[in-house]
């Protein structure tokens, strides 16, 4: 035993070291989110990491840099690659689908070509219906040299925006985009005024983010070993057709007009962000319950009056602004949905691809 040992001295030294490391970390703020074992040790993921608490395959990291670093798109672009990025919400991300059943991977299986280039589709969907979130992802996606962006939107994407953990984690990028492209999002701007305090920048303040990023790296083992990136509950059978008769939507009901609350300026901004890369905007398919199940709502998320107003409005906007727009709202029969909302089954995704492909060839390959 070392007779010089003093518990008090050890405690003081340990506390001092702890404080110094925390202060240094806050001062330097190392950008650790871009460091990733994916695409180096493990193959990149086919979609952005997202999972509810307790999912053994994944973890949600809200930092967009960390998310992209784990994605296959970070692998680098081959010279003969025609790179397509899909932007959207959980329906693009592939709720209820395995990583190789999602729309991007089914597209890749077709081995399509654009001239002498091979089409490679990347799934950059993320399960928050928010056009502001889409803008942040598009801004990041622009760094990866896409040749075409296919942007899936729906009424929930454009309706009144809320601040979510993803936007909070990426507020710097979000505010830059909002300012640069003059997008109106008051709540988002409020975030800009709230600078993270010193404590939030320390190791202790960042412990949750860091822990999730480390967990994402470790889970690369499970991703590589199992090829699974999400705990998929085994759902069988068709979605329930029984839809209630509640006409309310986001506090509105007929004869309210919701078109003023739709953030079309964000759709314009998204196209400007990736310019000159062409953007194909797709109004994503929705589950349409049969008439016998009620005439007030199409499905669980949407009453008919609200959705019809939205569809008419976006169509008008697309025509006026000459967007590349495709309305796929009823392109997929209800039996190819995984739930009574917006999420398609694997077969549903294939049907959707077939419907989009002609427009894809026209806009993307010419």
């Amino acid at each position, binding site marked *: *035993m070392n007779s010089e040992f003093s*518990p008090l001295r*050890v405690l003081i030294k340990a506390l001092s070291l702890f404080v110094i490391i925390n202060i240094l970390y806050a001062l330097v703020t190392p950008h650790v989110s871009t460091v990733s074992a994916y695409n180096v040790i493990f193959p990149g993921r086919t979609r952005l990491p997202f999972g509810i608490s307790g999912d*053994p395959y994944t973890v949600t990291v809200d930092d967009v840099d960390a998310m992209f670093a784990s994605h296959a798109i970070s692998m680098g672009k081959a010279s003969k690659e025609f790179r397509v990025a899909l932007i959207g919400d959980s329906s693009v991300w592939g709720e209820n689908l395995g990583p190789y059943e999602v729309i991007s991977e089914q597209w890749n299986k077709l081995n399509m070509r654009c001239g002498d280039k091979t089409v490679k589709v990347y799934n950059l969907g993320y399960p928050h219906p928010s056009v502001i979130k889409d803008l942040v992802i598009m801004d990041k996606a622009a760094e990866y040299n896409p040749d075409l962006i296919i942007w899936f939107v729906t009424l929930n994407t454009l309706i009144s925006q809320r601040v979510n953990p993803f936007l909070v984690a990426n507020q710097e990028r979000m505010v830059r985009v909002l300012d640069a492209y003059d997008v109106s999002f008051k709540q988002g701007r409020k975030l800009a005024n709230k600078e993270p305090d010193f404590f939030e920048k320390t190791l202790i303040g960042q412990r949750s983010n860091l822990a999730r990023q*480390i967990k994402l790296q*470790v889970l690369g*083992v*499970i991703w*590589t*070993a199992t090829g699974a990136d999400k705990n998929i509950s085994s759902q069988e059978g068709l979605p329930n057709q029984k839809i209630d008769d509640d006409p309310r939507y986001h506090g509105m009901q007929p004869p309210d007009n919701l078109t003023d609350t739709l953030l079309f300026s964000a759709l314009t901004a998204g196209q400007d962000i990736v310019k000159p890369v062409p953007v194909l905007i797709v109004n994503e398919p929705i589950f349409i319950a049969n008439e016998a199940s009620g005439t007030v709502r199409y499905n669980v998320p949407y009453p008919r009056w609200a959705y019809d107003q939205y569809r008419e409005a976006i169509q008008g906007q697309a025509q006026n602004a000459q967007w590349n727009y495709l309305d796929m709202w009823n392109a997929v029969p209800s039996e190819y949905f995984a739930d009574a909302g917006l999420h398609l089954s694997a077969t549903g995704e294939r049907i959707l691809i077939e419907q989009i492909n002609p427009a894809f060839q026209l806009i993307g390959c010419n």
Partner: protein
Amino acid sequence: MSISQLFIIAAVAFLVGQMQKGRSLALLGVSTFLIYWLQPVQQNVTLTFWLPTATLAVTVLTWLLTSTPEVRSWKQNLPAALVLLAVVICLDLNRYFQFEGIFSTATPRPQWIVAFFVVLLTLVFFMARLREIPPLLFAVAAISLIVIFILIKVPAALSLLVSGVFVLRGKEPAGSISLAWLGFSYVTFRLLHTILDRKAGRLSAVPLSDYVNYVIFFPAFTAGPIDRLERFTRDLNHPLPLDRAGWLEAGTPFFLGLFKKFVIADTLAWIALNDKFAQQINSSAWMWLLLYSYSFRIYFDFSGYTDIAIGLGRLLGIRLPKNFASPYLKPNLTQFWNSWHMTLTQWFRSYFFNPLTRAMRSGEQSLSPFLMILVAQISTMVLIGLWHGGTVGFVLWGLWHGVGLFLQNRWSDYMKDRVPAWGSTFTGQRVLRAAGIFLTFNFVSLGWLFFSLSTPAKVWSVIAILFGVS
């Protein structure tokens, strides 16, 4: 237990350890409170209260059984009895205090507690009057403990029993039932140790506070180690000073244990083999990696908790026995079992393996030594397996190790005079040792399959993938 809970417990351990007077009673109060505080919430909420209460009741009754009239005097034991009673009553009154962060507020009505104590005190009264404990009572107590243990470890047996009671009362049979009776596995083995040693005349009687402190000593309550009563009470009554060396002895295992458990084990848990992953992996290499992750995870988790317990114990002036000694670096299975969960293995050696081999040797028709070792090793390991839980997987795990120990024993005997010349050189010895470590670790890891996977069928299919025969 969470890290914050552990730091609170460490602070309490330090404060109690510094008390000059009333230390044993304070420790008793803290341990009693903690066995309630740490108890997970049960399906039937009042069980969250009743299970720790039953732990205390069984402990007090076993103390009466193992004590002598000299140490049973009211004067000597009244303070301890009052501390126990006060903590239990205060916790029951939480239904009125409503301190949700401390304990369940859905405690039984006080009249139930009174009824319970009337029954308990009646039993205590009659047992306390016994000058000599009839030998049969020791057997009844030991068997009762084993029956309770089986009911906890085999949910099917408990469900059957409860359904039987329901049917007798003319009610619908209950569904599947399981009890998460925190710490009772360890409590049972401590109680059995005192019952068996007392019956054999090897145990000196101790007062109530020393006995209950030994059985529910909070640092070792949930994950061991299993100390021996005489050794524990020696430290309890003559605590080791918390001087510079004491701080080092307490702090090193405590912080090392935290690191092992919350950094290494919890990280490995993300990639440790389980049913779900096993179903999705077809590559032998990945399967080995996940199996090794499981092996290291279980080691760091368990030994981490033990280290924390040793550190906390030392803060209280009590040196708990070592439970792990680098088990994965042992060159054969016998040495592995001498360094893995050592206190449990020693318990089984003392109270099952040795008596069994003695009985087999002294029997009229003595078995061959060969067969004796086989029977003793397999039955001991199967029982150790069953200690973890009453499933086929744990039985098979016990068999795996029992057969492994037997084969290793035979092999060592066979090789004793046949080691080649190169094996005696310095390099040869190191090569043989490394090979032994490699084989032992892999043998043990394969055994963990019975722990990590829910059915033998899944174990076989994983083994097939591991060896590339699927």
